[in-house]
């Protein structure tokens, strides 16, 4: 029912969309280096020579008993019920037929020359269709435009609750409504939810570079045009938290990497904030601070 498109497909789709949407300077992104690029019309060339670069090709594997995704009751929203054929399930854990885990955000956490300046990239679309966010997990470079669209005939609110960036909570009660936004500060991850439909959530990862990807329905992801070197990659999942892998990228080569997630990782702290922890025995509260 749901097609989890890889990052490349998403960007391609977004590029098509950009022709019609035009370029609306992201409001939330004003003041950001990346956001200013688009607003000022500055074209930043990609600083990495494709001829000298390498790539990463990876898989996110899931081991252990595959949890059965919980069914979502959309009977209060007949149009969404119809759109999804009444078979919608929770997207928090989606495992493909060959054991790949979908919706894992993978990005370069360490090892990249921080002086490199990248183009912000083409706009990315976050659609709401069948009372479901499409895609469920989005990767953005800081300042890159995110177009949020409502393809449903029902009210959605888009409630983004970042900690490093400014959030927003906007309403789209009519089909076809859309707005543009962007996030100027790197943050992994930013939760987005619809308060009208308690099951609707999406996650946006914002990195200071374009080296991020989201695993597809088979757990497959790829990153291109990386300068040769040693990197630490981190994979983030909304329920299982994070895990890292070191990789070496060579000129013209493709490095394979596999991330492993398993059932036992559920319940670990997921870096995303703020998570408010209440300790009633001591009468104190504290938050887990997300770290990038």
């Amino acid at each position, binding site marked *: 029912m749901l097609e989890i498109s890889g990052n490349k497909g998403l960007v391609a789709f977004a590029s098509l969309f950009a022709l019609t949407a035009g370029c609306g300077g992201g*409001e*939330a992104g*004003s*003041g950001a280096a990346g956001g200013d690029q688009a607003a000022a019309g500055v074209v930043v060339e990609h600083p990495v020579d494709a001829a000298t670069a390498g790539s990463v090709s990876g898989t996110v594997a899931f081991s252990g008993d595959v949890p059965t995704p919980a069914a979502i009751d959309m009977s*209060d929203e007949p149009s969404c019920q119809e759109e999804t054929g009444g078979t919608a399930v929770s997207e928090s854990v989606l495992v493909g037929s060959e054991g790949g885990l979908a919706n894992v955000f993978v990005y370069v956490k360490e090892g990249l020359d921080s002086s490199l300046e990248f183009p912000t990239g083409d706009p990315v679309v976050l659609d709401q269709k069948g009372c479901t966010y499409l895609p469920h997990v989005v990767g953005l470079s800081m300042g890159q435009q995110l177009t949020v669209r409502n393809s449903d005939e*029902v*009210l959605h*609110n*888009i*409630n*983004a*609750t970042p*900690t490093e960036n*400014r*959030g*927003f*909570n*906007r*309403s*789209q*009660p*009519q089909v076809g*409504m859309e*707005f543009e936004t962007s996030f100027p500060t790197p943050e992994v991850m930013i939760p987005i939810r619809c*308060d*009208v*439909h*308690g099951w609707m959530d999406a996650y946006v990862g914002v990195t200071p570079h374009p080296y991020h990807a989201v695993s597809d329905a088979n757990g497959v992801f790829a990153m291109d045009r990386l300068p040769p070197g040693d990197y630490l990659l981190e994979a983030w999942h909304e329920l299982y938290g994070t895990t890292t892998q070191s990789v070496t990228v060579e000129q013209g080569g493709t490095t394979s990497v596999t991330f492993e997630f398993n059932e036992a990782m559920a319940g670990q702290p997921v870096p995303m904030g*703020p*998570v*408010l922890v*209440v300790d*009633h*025995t001591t*009468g*104190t*509260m*504290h*938050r887990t601070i997300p770290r990038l």
Partner: protein
Amino acid sequence: MGTRALVMAAYLLLPLPLAAQETDNENPAGKVVYDRWCAGCHGTDGRGEGPGALTMLPRPRDFTRALYQVRTTGSGELPTDDDIMHVINVGMPGTAMPGWEDLLSSQEREDLVTYLKSMSRFFNSSPPPAQLEFSNAPRVSDDRIAEGAEIYEQVECSKCHGRSGRADGPSAPTQKDDSDLPIYPANLTQNWRFNGGGTVEDIYRVLRTGLDGTPMPTFSDLIDAGVITDDQLWNLAHYVRSLSPEESPRIREVITAANVGDGEGGLPTSPTDERWETVDKFYIPLVGQIVVKPRWFNPRVQNLWVQALHDSADVAMLVSWSDPSRSPNEEWAPFAQQIVEAMGPKDEGSTWAPGAPDQLVVQFPLTLPTGMERPYFLQGDARRPAYLWSWRSDHDRAVEMVARGLGTGQEQPASSQQVSAEAAWADGEWRVLFRRSLATPDSTSDLQMPRATVVPVAFQAWDGNNGEAGNQAAVSTWYFLALEEPVPVTVLITPLAAFLLTAVLGLVVVTRAQRREKEIPGRN
């Protein structure tokens, strides 16, 4: 006034140290005010985790995130200095945040604004926020309210706030705030509890800006996208305003029960009888029970409306209150569980369990007091017991009890039960009609209500779907129920006769005086 005078006096005595503090970066002037008045709830570091925070839902603001609900700026934008000052001045109705305008000097409050802004890096790194442009409120009319009602459905306000506005929409049980804690949509029939203010201008502003940190989004995009016009958004605001009474309800200590006599079919027998619409309604505010453990800091039933009638033989009392759900209700069970967890089950000993009902207790003294002394307001004590009418939504009936302290009520045997109750829940409102004869056979365990008397009465309410059970309830103080007697005909005729007599005598006197004037020559 006394406090303000004290603050003024303090200023006169301490001008130099305060001036010195303003220039001290380590200890800015606003910090002194903040640490004294604000840190108890918001925490010394401003993260909303002060010692008082665990008793509050919604939790106090976390100033380090710079998320402010009440603003004149767009969603996600920082507030203006005036926005922050406004909330400090008037507080947040419906929450634990009081207004400070009368307690702190304007200098102290300005220092506080500066200090609050220093707690978040966003105020340093972002340009000053731009205030949204608000148009002026058009004059309200029936047409505008009618159009507003259509927009209310069109843009699906009812999803959360419910068709009646009583926070009973289908999405209400899954609402969470930015701390991931459960939160209710506003009850739109009680504008005096709107945290952004209850005027039509306040409502319009909240529609434009949203309430950041809560599920309430901005609706400004609708105007920009041409879905509705700015004028239509005003109509929506007018409609929302029209759901609440024109004036905030007044508290009256005496609930009068008129005597309907034998006419008009006697007492209404149904809680939904149309005749209740013409009977005077008395507003009873409730607060959380915070005396006896486990205490309750998050009562859902904030107020009741009481109406009463009698016919010299029976008394009928209709109690109605907003409650977004009929407990128990599986859809609300996770919400209730989250409320219980957020309010601290370990230190307080919550007795809530899934399946908890809604409850209402109407409390009287067991015997009519001869002087001013009434039983303890929480269901009496050993010396002065309380006599209760206890209604539960799961049993859908009321029973008589005698209690000697909160939660000690003993149900009277079935053979001596005298009270009856009929309940109706619709559109986020309970209406429970109690009925009992004024005099009962068991005079030792039932309060007898002689005619033409005034009976102390108090109320306690539970919302099972809000995690309430046992001692964790909303409670009122004592009020009085006055059983009025029919006015004898002589009472009506006597003043009329007196008036007529006075008028006739007056006429006679005036006429005589005028005659005398004419008879005296030489006077002009």
